[in-house]
């Protein structure tokens, strides 16, 4: 079971045996890279808000319309990642556990949302789900409107972040030793029990990581959502659009202020998932 701990953990860096020499150099390069590519832009973001006072900052991030956009974005990202959690798990399961013709093609297609420029995804989804589009026509018969409603936001977010769940769950599932399941079966466990008590606990941390990644990605998604959302104030405006609007007004400070809220939310989520995961694993492995 221990080997399953590789492949899905976000910040997990086990100080294992040094197989290769040159630790100092590679560590140095890593730290430099992290500083230049990750930390510096974040510092820049915070520096840009520095010419605001706290009250100004507070006023910008609690503006009524911006708050409405947080709600829209959070709810949409929540439902999108929930959907991805279920469908992504299913896809990963099918891809790992079954053999069927065309499996490799489907496996490759999973990454399509990553390969596709998000604006293209947005335009394509809007075309499909508009009332004169292929899906939209059928959904209209059921009285469901997707394009240019908050539902469209969920669809766009789910599409662009689906690979996160599949790609985090897949390797763990592949590493899962069939002996555990066989052992459970020989002890008389039903299929459902095997899944619930043996398979799922091992998958759970990876699934949660995938869902969390999917969620944070959805929080920041702009290109795909903007074409399908309809962008009605207070109804279907996402937070990224609020940032975009501030940039259009050349108000970099306000844009950075709103961006810092999104960043903070993402970081808090990712860190708490990681902490939760570490605890969960300790319990699971009885360490």
């Amino acid at each position: 079971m221990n080997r399953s701990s590789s492949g899905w953990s976000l910040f997990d860096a086990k100080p294992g045996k040094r197989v290769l020499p040159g630790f100092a150099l590679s560590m140095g390069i890593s730290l430099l890279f992290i500083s230049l590519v990750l930390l510096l832009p974040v510092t820049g973001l915070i520096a840009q808000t520095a010419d605001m006072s706290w009250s100004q900052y507070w006023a910008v991030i609690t503006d009524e319309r911006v708050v409405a956009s947080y709600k829209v974005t959070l709810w949409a990202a929540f439902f999108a990642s929930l959907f991805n959690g279920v469908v992504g798990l299913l896809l990963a399961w099918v891809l790992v556990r079954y053999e069927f013709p065309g499996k490799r093609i489907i496996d490759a297609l999973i990454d399509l949302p990553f390969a596709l420029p998000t604006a293209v995804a947005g335009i394509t989804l809007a075309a499909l789900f508009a009332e004169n589009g292929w899906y939209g026509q059928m959904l209209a018969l059921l009285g469901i409107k997707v394009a240019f409603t908050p539902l469209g936001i969920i669809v766009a977010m789910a599409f662009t972040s689906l690979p996160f769940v599949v790609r985090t769950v897949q390797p763990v599932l592949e590493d899962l030793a069939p002996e555990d399941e066989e052992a459970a079966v020989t002890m008389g466990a039903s299929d459902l029990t095997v899944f619930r008590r043996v398979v799922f606990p091992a998958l759970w941390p990876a699934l949660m990581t995938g869902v969390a990644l999917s969620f944070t990605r959805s929080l920041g998604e702009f290109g795909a959502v903007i074409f399908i959302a309809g962008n009605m104030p207070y109804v279907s405006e996402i937070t990224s659009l609020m940032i975009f609007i501030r940039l259009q007004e050349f108000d970099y400070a306000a844009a950075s202020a709103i961006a810092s809220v999104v960043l903070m939310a993402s970081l808090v989520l990712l860190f708490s998932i990681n902490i939760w995961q570490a605890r969960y694993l300790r319990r699971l492995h009885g360490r």
Partner: protein
Amino acid sequence: MFQSPGKLIKRLVVTLAVTGSVGMANAQAADQEILNSSYDIARELFASYNELFTQHWLDETGKTVEIKQSHGGSSKQAQAIIQGLRADLVTYNQVTDVDILHQRGNLIPADWRKRLPNASSPYYSTMAFLVRKGNPKNIQNWDDLVRDDVSSVLPNPKTSGNGRYTYLAALGYAQKTFGDDQAAIDEFLRDFLGNVAVFDTGGRGATTTFIERGIGDVLLTFESEVNNIAAQYPPGEYQVVVPKVSFLAEFPVTWIDRNVERNGTADVAREYLEYLYSEEAQRLIAGFNYRVHDQAVQAEFADRFPELELLPIEEIAGDWETAMTVHFGSGGKLDQLQRR
């Protein structure tokens, strides 16, 4: 269908070599090179104008010039220049995006609008309506757009100059209709904005929503754009409606002093913009459905541009700076009107 890899690679190499050498030849041939930073929907216009101008410049000076184009939302374009893109000149569709080049970067003088005729706007346009076949909702003027049975499509005034112009046009109409009755003006604008079905971030996005997605009864955008769209479809498929009153949308141009100095392109950049006012250029621009100042060309194209009352920004909101803070800034009039 399938070629042997060797053959394919050979063809690829030949193609690359040919295109490469053509590119090189061009680069070597041109004595000078200038970069025109322009707005999103001006690609076709400046592609044609550049041909006209290169010939003109060759005739006048015996020198060749290569004009590079950069297109995008003009606020974004202006940001790129402030952040260091060394464009020689700008041809935008919003005065504010040129103003920012003075305010933020001090790249141009404050009085840039006085450097060329017609407040540095060689051509202009206005906001018009595009309606579906036969105009089923009988949309003729701004007051039709607040009717309960009409839904409209326009780009977001928060993110698009195009949308700001439309908002100001509706405001101008309301001011003319209701005079000093501020409550009635607000009510009108609230209804107008309430009828919007989709707020796209840019003009072309709104066009797609209206045409391809079939959303809304009326698309509001530049008269030039409206005519271009209508011309792409069989006659009658879409109809152009020009209201009786609308906004004077200017297309400001200027050279960027700081950059032309560094690039050594002051003469050619200036001539590039001045030549926009020549009769030949104005005829070409009118061909793209923009209104022009040249009287001879105006007469030629008279049937294409119905007469209407054009309200300049000064009459509606004082000046651009006021308009931006009072109407479009955070917590401004637009935000208040859209509040639920």
